[in-house]
């Protein structure tokens, strides 16, 4: 049966961005919001429940040669689209969980020795976990991570809960101690993770990330009871499966508000993991929903869940030239360190909990590192028409790169997009400045919602400066500060 789609190049492209996603089921959260096309209903008649029932997509059709027969422009275009897609996530301020606690459950069962991911699932998992931990602490400086392994039918504590990245990394640094063997037990591991987090205060999030390579689980009791108790304790479980989807894994994620994904290849595995790094929006509405699912467990204070005062200590830093003394954490003789303001114990690294009095010790830069989650940079609007570029600078406002000149617009599709955008954007331009956000949404929907500017210009709606595609991504991903607005 020939695939049901149009021959329009434009459509093939946007279909292409769906293509890679159809494997792991159409219900994947977060990916489902790819392009909102008007004819979506036609190409997929109903949401197909299985991957093999979904319409067949030829991924090689998404790559089009340009006039000179080269694939480079098509490849660049795909890369730009992929990077841009992440930015289209909502950028308005939402309340996020800043203090996070995460237990990573690693599958250390026999199935991890499979070589379908290079070099082995196990080695790849360790490598990505290391990168994940580094990046996670970079974005969640006040969080803590613990490690639990699933091996030989039991849960095994691999690393204690810690807010210090080297400590966490040390737990998984010795490969030979983690050698995979036996069957995994989801229930044992989750119970262990749950008990580790049971003492945590309510304003912090409790999360479990399971990297699961097996297709079986060998549990001592009813895992659904464990699931119920996790819902009750507001523990959010996310699973990254390396083999295939399991019903219980999906259920764990869906009922606790986590994310579920099956890794198709090495790159996708990494993407799935790294999607879990930004702090989640605080569950004010969904906590009520999960409470209802948990058969009548009372939802406590739905409007204001999580707000709390925390006691924190701001330590005095000892300069490198101070006389050496022993630290309480490693009992090593060092001159540099930080003094706990409450008990004057000396610790090596912050942020941490004081080993003597238990006070949470942070410094003001650690708090500042979280601010960008609270003040995100507004999404830039893709500039579509040449009229708009008339009085703006020929260079990127941030990196001073020259924009490409609009004249040689080769493929007809770019011209058509620009033409299509013409009507909507010119009308919105007529409106007052304050309406610019609405104008942006209108334009974005009209141009296929992937927000790619044919001119390579992305304009800040506040300061009306243009930025190149690379700076757009860099500003939103790393810098978190618009060079034009200075905010």
């Amino acid at each position, binding site marked *: 049966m020939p695939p049901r789609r149009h021959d329009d190049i434009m459509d093939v492209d946007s279909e292409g961005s769906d293509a890679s996603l159809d494997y792991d089921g159409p219900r994947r959260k977060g990916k489902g919001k790819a392009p909102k096309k008007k004819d979506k209903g036609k190409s997929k008649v109903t949401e197909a429940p299985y991957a093999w029932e979904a319409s067949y997509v030829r991924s090689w059709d998404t790559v089009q040669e340009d006039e000179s027969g080269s694939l480079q422009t098509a490849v660049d275009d795909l890369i730009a689209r992929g990077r841009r897609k992440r930015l289209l996530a909502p950028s308005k301020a939402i309340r996020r969980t800043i203090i996070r606690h995460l237990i990573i459950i690693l599958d250390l069962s026999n199935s991890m020795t499979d070589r379908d991911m290079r070099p082995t699932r196990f080695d790849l998992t360790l490598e990505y976990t290391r990168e994940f931990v580094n990046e996670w602490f970079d974005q969640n400086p006040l969080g803590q991570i613990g490690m639990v392994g699933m091996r030989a039918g039991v849960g095994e504590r691999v690393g204690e809960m810690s807010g210090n990245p080297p400590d966490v990394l040390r737990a998984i640094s010795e490969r030979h101690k983690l050698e995979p063997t036996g069957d995994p037990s989801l229930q044992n591991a989750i119970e262990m993770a749950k008990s580790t987090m049971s003492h945590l205060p309510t304003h912090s999030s409790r999360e479990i990330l399971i990297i699961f390579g097996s297709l079986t689980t060998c549990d001592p009791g009813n895992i659904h009871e464990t699931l119920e108790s996790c819902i009750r304790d507001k523990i959010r479980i996310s699973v990254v499966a390396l083999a295939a989807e399991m019903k219980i894994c999906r259920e764990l994620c869906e009922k606790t508000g986590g994310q579920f994904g099956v890794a198709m290849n090495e790159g996708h595995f990494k993407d799935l993991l790294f999607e879990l790094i930004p702090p989640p929006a605080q569950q004010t509405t969904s906590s009520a929903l999960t409470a209802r699912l948990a058969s009548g467990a009372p939802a406590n204070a739905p409007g204001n869940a999580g*707000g709390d*005062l925390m*006691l924190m*200590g*701001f330590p005095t830093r000892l300069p490198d030239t101070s006389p050496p003394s022993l630290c309480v954490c490693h009992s090593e003789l060092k001159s540099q360190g930080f003094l706990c303001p409450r008990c004057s114990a000396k610790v090596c690294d912050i942020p941490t909990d004081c080993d003597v009095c238990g006070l949470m010790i942070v410094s003001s830069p650690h708090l500042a590192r979280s601010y960008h989650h609270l003040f995100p940079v507004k999404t830039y609007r893709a500039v579509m028409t040449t009229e708009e570029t008339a009085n703006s600078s020929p260079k990127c406002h941030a990196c*001073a790169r020259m924009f490409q000149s609009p004249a040689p617009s080769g493929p007809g599709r770019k011209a058509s997009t620009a033409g299509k955008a013409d009507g909507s954007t010119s009308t919105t331009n007529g409106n007052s400045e304050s309406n610019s956000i609405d104008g942006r949404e209108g334009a974005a929907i009209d141009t296929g919602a992937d927000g790619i500017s044919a001119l390579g210009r992305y304009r800040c709606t506040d300061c009306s400066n243009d930025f190149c595609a690379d*700076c757009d991504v860099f500003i939103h991903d790393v810098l978190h500060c618009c060079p034009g607005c200075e905010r």
Partner: protein
Amino acid sequence: MDRSSHLSVILDLCPTQWSLSAKPSNPHPLPFDTFLSHLLVFLNSHIAYKHENSLAVFGALPGKSVLFYSSEEAGDLSTAEVVQSDPNSYRFFKTLDQSLVQRISREFDILGQPDTEEPPALVGALTKAICYINRLLHPAQTLSSPEDSANLPEPRILILSVSPDASNSYIPIMNSIFSAQKLKITLDVCKIFGPDSVFLQQAAYLTGGSYIYLEHREALLQYLIMSFLPTPSIRKIITIPTEDKTDFRAACFCHKHIVDVGYVCSVCLSIFCQPVPVCSTCRTKFPMKTLQRLNMTRTPSQPSTPRPTNGTPTRQVFSGLAANLR
């Protein structure tokens, strides 16, 4: 150690501060033209240091930031302004000196004499400098092979600051510092005039650069050449003066006291020196139980050293947040 180095210089061009700096009543007056001539010698010696070295000069003018000069546009002769050829000087020095002086004076002319002066756009210049370096470090995807990455320049930013901290730039400056850390950019700060800048002290400390407060301003060139000309890899061998007393304690939002033990709102991370029932920034109500517990454990004598400035945001920074999080 053979890597070339990229230097981005950020000039703080705040007219008021420079006129104050030039006053003869100062113990060590430094007028702007003297500063400029010192600076040009330093910039020339940076390009002369190694052939591949690159340079970009950004200016933080009141209310706007400008790229004055970059090596790549100088290499491209078509865009460079017409430079009088002088057989007695090296062409790159000449291009740099002339275009930099011309553009600075042009910007000052545009500036005119406004009644009220906006604070210099240090954040804009800093973020532009970081974006520029980001472009240098990630040229094109086709080039990113391992041997190419070894040829990428070693980046650093030198901030020549004269104006005091603007409290509302705390968050963007911290964000810039963290992205500089990620890109492994060293931030050096030379405080030429005015009070110590806590934000820039933190910037230098967190990125492994050095913060130098200029006491003898007429010796600017010597400071520049001795401390800021060596690249970060060479600095491991020679000793560069560093600031070792950077204080990272925080000030509370309610009284601006420096606190040792503070109470922090879990939603917006505002800092208070005593337990409060409602967060003044995001209007979160705190549970009664916590307040009672915290009041119990609270030590009777709160250390409240009346030190006015330190590296935490003021309340006005957060004023926009209240609406967002409610």
